[in-house]
């Protein structure tokens, strides 16, 4: 009991020291705190001043064939141009339709990124339709582009509606859409906020790694090694100080987003639980980075590797993840070994769909377990590099 109390006192002393150091190195602290909120501002500015727009080029070889009623080209141009008037989600996106005379020139513009899709309506389209034959339209575009896929679907739906109306046939399939997002979460800016929150947490990787390494680089860790402080007490206090910084980053990012109209669906305690676990996982990777680096300068170079790895493989970026095995109906892959992947799922579930910790038990549990395991690896690497192993082995026999 006495040693536990002593441990708590030492832990608090180190925590206080780290918090004081963080506050006094205010330049770095401000950079960490306002990095993500700045991008919230940039995203908001971008989405508000320039709404998402898709660009369609139209080559209407059938123009004039149905002068009285309006051909497919005319109808598409007016239907798609009216898209995005007061809608939400994808329906808030605008579609700019531009007529071009020549398919070759239009395709060249798509290649140059000036448009997302070229729709070619061949001559005789109306005649085929009137004759009861199956008419064909041609889409030109980059099939690897999600913008192409989305515009294709919207254009196809509009064209199909035209054909069923023109032929007097019933549409073969009726569809109804049910959004799984709350109504308030359909603006593109809202969809971007969870990723920005995760970005704010990821920023702490560098500050945490630098904090761990600095003590060793300056040599002050040797003083602490001669004290009663244990490695666990020291690293836990350092980790907690960075966890607090990460949570402050999350709160500032959220507050900035809310100031721009974002509505938080999740309860704040649930969100802080998920954000806290995600932050702890980033601190664990900071410790691993520190275990591989000898100086703060090294951290700024080597740290980019785990930073990008987490950014790419945690689910923030849409990269596929190879599946290793399945258990209990759940696939486990490369992404599942990173705690932040589960953090991304948990935060997106809470922020996009209003889910609670009860709905995300697996993700939160996996995050806690994986964070503990990665922290152990970090402890091992840090202790080996900075707490004596290397120096001892360097002694000549």
């Amino acid at each position, binding site marked *: 009991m006495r040693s536990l109390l*002593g441990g708590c*006192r*030492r832990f608090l*002393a*180190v925590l*206080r*020291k780290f918090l*004081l*150091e963080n506050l*006094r*190195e205010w330049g770095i602290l401000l950079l960490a705190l306002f990095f993500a909120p700045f991008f919230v501002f940039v995203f908001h500015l971008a989405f508000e001043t320039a709404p998402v727009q898709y660009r369609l080029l139209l080559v209407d070889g059938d123009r004039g064939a149905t002068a009285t009623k309006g051909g497919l080209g005319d109808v598409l141009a007016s239907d798609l141009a009216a898209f995005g008037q007061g809608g939400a989600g994808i329906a808030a996106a605008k579609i700019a339709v531009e007529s071009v005379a020549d398919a070759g020139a239009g395709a060249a513009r798509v290649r140059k990124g000036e448009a997302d899709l070229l729709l070619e309506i061949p001559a005789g389209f109306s005649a085929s339709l009137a004759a009861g034959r199956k008419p064909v339209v041609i889409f030109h575009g980059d099939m690897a582009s999600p913008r192409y896929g989305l515009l294709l679907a919207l254009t196809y739906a509009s064209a199909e509606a035209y054909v069923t109306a023109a032929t007097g046939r019933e549409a073969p399939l009726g569809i109804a859409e049910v959004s799984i997002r709350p109504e308030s979460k359909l603006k593109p800016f809202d969809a971007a906020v969870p990723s920005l929150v995760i970005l704010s947490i990821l920023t702490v990787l560098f500050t945490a790694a630098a904090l761990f390494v600095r003590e060793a680089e*300056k*040599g*002050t860790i*040797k*003083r*602490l*090694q*001669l*004290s*009663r*402080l244990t490695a666990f007490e020291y690293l836990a206090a350092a980790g907690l100080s960075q966890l607090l910084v990460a949570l402050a980053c999350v709160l500032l990012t959220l507050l900035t987003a809310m100031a721009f109209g974002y509505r938080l669906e999740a309860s704040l305690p649930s969100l802080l639980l998920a954000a806290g676990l995600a932050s702890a996982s980033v601190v664990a990777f900071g410790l691993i980075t520190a275990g591989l680096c000898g100086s703060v300068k090294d951290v700024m170079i080597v740290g980019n590797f785990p930073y990008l790895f987490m950014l790419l493989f945690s689910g923030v970026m849409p990269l596929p993840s190879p599946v290793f095995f399945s258990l209990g109906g759940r696939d486990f892959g490369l992404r599942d070994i990173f705690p932040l992947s589960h953090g991304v799922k948990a935060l997106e579930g809470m922020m996009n769909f209003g889910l609670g910790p009860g709905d995300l038990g697996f993700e939160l549990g996996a995050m806690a377990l994986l964070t503990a395991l990665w922290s152990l690896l970090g402890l091992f690497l840090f202790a080996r590099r900075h707490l*004596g192993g290397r*120096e*001892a*082995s*360097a*002694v*000549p*026999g």
Partner: protein
Amino acid sequence: MICGFLAPGAGTISMAVRPEWGGARRAIGYCPQEIMVWETLSCREQLVFMGRVHDLGGRRAKARADFLLEALGLAERSRSLAKTLSGGMRRRLNIALALVHEPELVVLDEPQAGLDPQGRVLVREFVRSLRSTSSVLLTTHDMEEADRLADRVAIMDGGRILALDSPEGLRASEGAAEVVEVRRRTLEDVFIGLTGRRLRE
């Protein structure tokens, strides 16, 4: 090696410490030759912090910090961040950090390096005062300093102890060349005589 940072290639190091230290390393106060201070903590903050991680109570840690700041001429700068101190002050703070927990063995590595004459005198007298409470192991290239401070001197070369005795014993040893010295005032004596013993920084 004594502090446990380096593993000995051969042999053992024995040290008698009271059991309440809970291990020999904790009974050591180490002042390295390099300055190892927390740049963004004030002098008092880092001394109190060191006391706390050595399990001193809050009041005791503060009292020790204040005593050491006074003894090493840093009381007026107790609230200054270490990064704002002059080189001499940082070196004295470096020494103070090794002594907060009143260690049984104080290891001082070139403690007077880079100090001005006033600082050297202050540190010398302070180190001499430590002899009443602690064993002091001081490494130096300055033979004058060793002569003035040490009860026993080990002369090392190439990692080997060539001689170990009191300064008087070493001087009287057979291998030592006989020297007749007429002592003149040293430049240090002249400098201190002209500028006084008061610390400038």
